[in-house]
């Protein structure tokens, strides 16, 4: 186990269920906690913050935050955890500016990533309501201020508990880009609790899936969404998610060439400059399979792949895990009928051509 991880083995009896969380995730990343309500996600977050006192141990980088056996427990105010919860996070007797200053005054200045209040005001677009108090702000504005305040406190860990769940659809769409911007600001490790598959796909670098108090699944996001043993891939709208980079624009065709670590994808012209980072989602339904590379097709993206695994999902359909030829660790999924599988006699290890009908950009 390398040093730059967040690892824990925590237990807390909640009466009805017992939260048991044993995990190790890479540190400078967004770890998403996903699962039904009451499965222990929020409890784990409260234990990471030091609000709840679990049994067991917790290590962040090379710092031991708690170890039940050796009676070690770093209190919350010495941990430095930026929290954004569903509600009740802004101090009601202070205005927006004062809320930011509250965090700034107490933030350590020596650390590597010092984010000044003014930077977050620009980043989160707060300048028009700096003198207002929490009750004078909309739900989306409140959460933006809470995010900004958490960043200003120069946290060693960001804890976000369904920060979008109390918002309406419109405010959610408005806030997501800010969350992504925050993520790109980079290298502040974050734990993000969510119910939403969409948020999970957009934000997660690492996925922890909770079920009845324990972690049922843990994997890097790019693996999790294409892993047939992961509970996520059994959902109706199964999709694989990959990080991509804007390679070049082909203006004569109105196309953009995206570079992934396992190949390239052509998508309709996007407005991001060359080199921009983004995520793409490939739905299993949008991938069809062919034995030969067809030239006589309108499909833009055809890639050679190797069949890694076949899994029936109901009587008539299969999920096929496809290994990319350029990068053996990258897989994506195709959803196809049982009839096609039999007619083309698709077998594991077979070389096929995946025809990708659509690529969704998650930005």
């Amino acid at each position, binding site marked *: 186990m390398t040093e730059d991880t967040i690892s824990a083995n925590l237990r807390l009896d909640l009466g009805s269920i017992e939260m048991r969380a044993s995990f190790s995730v890479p540190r400078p990343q967004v770890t998403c906690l996903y699962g039904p309500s009451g499965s222990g996600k929020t409890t784990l977050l409260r234990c990471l*913050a*030091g*609000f709840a006192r679990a049994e067991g141990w917790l290590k962040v980088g090379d710092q031991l935050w708690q170890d039940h056996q050796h009676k070690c427990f770093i*209190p*919350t*105010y*010495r*941990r*430095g*955890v*930026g*929290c954004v*919860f569903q509600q*009740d*996070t802004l*101090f*009601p*007797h202070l205005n927006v500016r004062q809320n930011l200053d*509250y*965090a700034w005054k*107490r*933030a*350590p200045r020596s650390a590597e990533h010092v984010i000044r209040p003014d930077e977050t005001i620009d980043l989160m677009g707060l300048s028009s309501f700096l003198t207002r*108090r929490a*009750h004078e702000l909309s739900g989306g504005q409140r959460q933006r201020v809470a995010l900004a*305040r958490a960043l200003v*406190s120069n*946290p060693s860990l960001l*804890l976000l508990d369904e920060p979008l769940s109390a918002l309406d659809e419109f405010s959610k769409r408005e806030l997501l880009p800010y969350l992504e911007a925050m993520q790109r600001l980079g290298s502040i490790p974050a734990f993000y609790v969510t119910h939403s598959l969409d948020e999970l796909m957009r934000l997660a670098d690492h996925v922890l899936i909770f079920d009845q108090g324990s972690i049922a699944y843990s994997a890097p996001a790019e693996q999790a969404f294409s892993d047939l043993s992961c509970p996520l891939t059994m959902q109706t709208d199964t999709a694989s998610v990959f990080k991509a980079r804007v390679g070049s624009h082909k203006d004569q065709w109105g196309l953009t060439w995206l570079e992934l670590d396992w190949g390239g994808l052509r998508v309709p012209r996007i407005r991001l400059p060359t080199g921009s980072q983004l995520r793409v989602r490939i739905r299993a339904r949008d991938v069809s399979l062919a034995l030969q590379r067809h030239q006589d097709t309108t499909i833009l993206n055809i890639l050679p792949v190797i069949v890694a695994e076949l899994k029936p999902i109901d009587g008539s359909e299969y999920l096929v895990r496809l290994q990319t030829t350029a990068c053996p660790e990258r897989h994506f999924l195709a959803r196809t009928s049982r009839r096609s599988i039999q007619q083309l006699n698709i077998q594991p290890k077979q070389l096929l051509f995946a025809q990708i009908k659509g690529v969704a950009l998650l930005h």
Partner: protein
Amino acid sequence: MPIDPEPFLLTLRLAVVTTLLLILLGLPLAWWLAFRAGPLKPFIKSLVALPLVLPPTVLGFYLLLVMGASGPLGQLWIRLTGGTLAFTFEALVIGSFIFSLPFVVLPMQSAFESLGKSYMEMAASLRAGPLDRWLSIGLPLIRRSLMTSATLAFAHTLGEFGIVLMIGGNIPGETEVASIAIYNHVEAIEYTQAHILAGFMAIASFLLLLAVNSLDRRPITII
């Protein structure tokens, strides 16, 4: 016919000392009751609320037993200070403190409960230590409840009679507070002096309550 201001000043002194003590000790007790008390909570809460329902003479009688020269607190007092406790100003303070305790602890407990822990937890997450959290977040957020209950406790101490009579006796300059002085004047058929003291008390109490109620009229945005 001279008016002796002593009983009025003594009452004021008693009310100030009692109120300060109530805030100093009652506030942590209210916090403890709200968040930490566990199974002890109903027991302690009932004990704190007892002065609301007991006749002051009953309370005063038991306090007299405890603080008397042979009572446990009285004995301890003699060992610590060399003097007796009953019938002193200190005895009055202790009695008034217990008598007005529910006026501070019960409203503050419910203020803490409706405030919840989340703001204090947020402050901790932003690296505010325990004392810092209290001064920067806890106190400002409960200040209106605190003002209201402190003023009520103050006014309540001004008007108290039964307990101070039982444990303070009636010693001029030492334990003869305004309410007792008024009683003495009436007994001695000195109606003018009684009028002046009583009028003072009535106006002072009314002004205090007016202050509390004016505070309450402002729009409520925080607890």
